[in-house]
């Protein structure tokens, strides 16, 4: 079990880092401009904030969209780990901990899919 979890975590990080790197190369290639003024906070455009929007942007091979997809995958890695723990506790028939991990999973899903309105 621990072995699978280690592989899961490592491949999640590796895959997301590769996506961010590829996206970064494309972004720098096409973005030969003076640096954006980050001193003033504007917030990201809508298409780089939501899961669906990021998938569409990345599908067009836009650098920023690909980076954001990599970051989304990175955020999803701990979520996958918690999901895996739910299964592991189910397998052990440890119902208390199935419940505990389900609560954590629900909180994470709330943040990822519905937390924007807070």
């Amino acid at each position, binding site marked *: 079990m621990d072995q699978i979890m280690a592989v899961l975590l490592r491949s999640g990080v590796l895959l997301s880092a590769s996506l961010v790197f590829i996206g970064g190369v494309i972004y720098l290639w096409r973005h*030969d401009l003076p640096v954006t003024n980050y001193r003033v906070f504007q*917030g990201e455009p809508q298409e780089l904030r939501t899961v669906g929007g990021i998938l569409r942007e990345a599908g067009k091979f836009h650098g920023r969209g690909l980076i954001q997809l990599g970051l989304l995958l990175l955020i999803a890695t701990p979520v996958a780990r918690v999901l895996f723990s739910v299964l592991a506790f189910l397998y052990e028939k440890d119902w208390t*901990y199935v419940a505990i991990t389900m609560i954590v999973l629900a909180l994470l899903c709330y943040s990822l899919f519905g937390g924007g309105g807070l």
Partner: protein
Amino acid sequence: MNTLEFTLLVGMGSLLAGFLGSLTGLGGGVVIVPMLTLLFHVDIRYAIGAALVSVIATSSGAAAAYVKEGYSNVRVGMFLEIATTVGALVGAAVALHLHVSVIAVIFGLALIYSAFSSLREKPEHTTNVAPDRIATWLRMDSSYPTAHGVTQYHVRGVPLGFALMFGAGVLSGLLGIGSGAVKVLAMDQAMKLPFKVSTTTSNFMIGVTAAASAGIYLSRGYIDPGIAMPVMLGVLGGSLVGARILAGATVRSLRLVFAVVIGFLAVEMIYNGFAGKM
């Protein structure tokens, strides 16, 4: 400065931060926010978004190594993650409404605490405390490998640990840091876990806590790909190199230097916060 130069400079700074953070055990995240705001004049909200992402990367990378060795206590970690994720959601929600100057001051104070706690001596308390009712019911007692073979330990102080973890989660969501120092305090001091178990379990939890607030930061548009890309790759690369070079070795003088640097950054963050320069 063009985009390429900015990216490379931020990337190199993050590489160094990740390297020193993993050597000293403080984590790279704590230096990222002051570096981006004070050196590169990035708005603190973008800086926190980028730091959160790098915290997830290093935590997940390191946790992969620790779960294998059998140090981390998965039950304790999972139970306390309820407290840290709720805390992180609260912290991220509060951060959306706080003035950036207030966040800068709180950040400075948290930095001073992490620098201070990294220098404190940590004696391994081997006293095998008596079993605790709540911990027994939650089957948290476990064992871990030591030099004298596998050693059993009992867990205590679950309610206090849970409360402290909520605080660690709030700080993490508010400031984009892993709050490793507070997590270790909760497990080591309040719950009497062996120190090695506390640090590895804390690392195991940091990724989940950070993911809880990162979701909110992402949907609020605080995570900018142009900043997060060099920060995430830099911190991750630096921490991997750091872990390779000195696996487990204690580097006291380096830790002292790093703590002093963090202390300075903290003072500057607090000053800028009060002066309204953030």
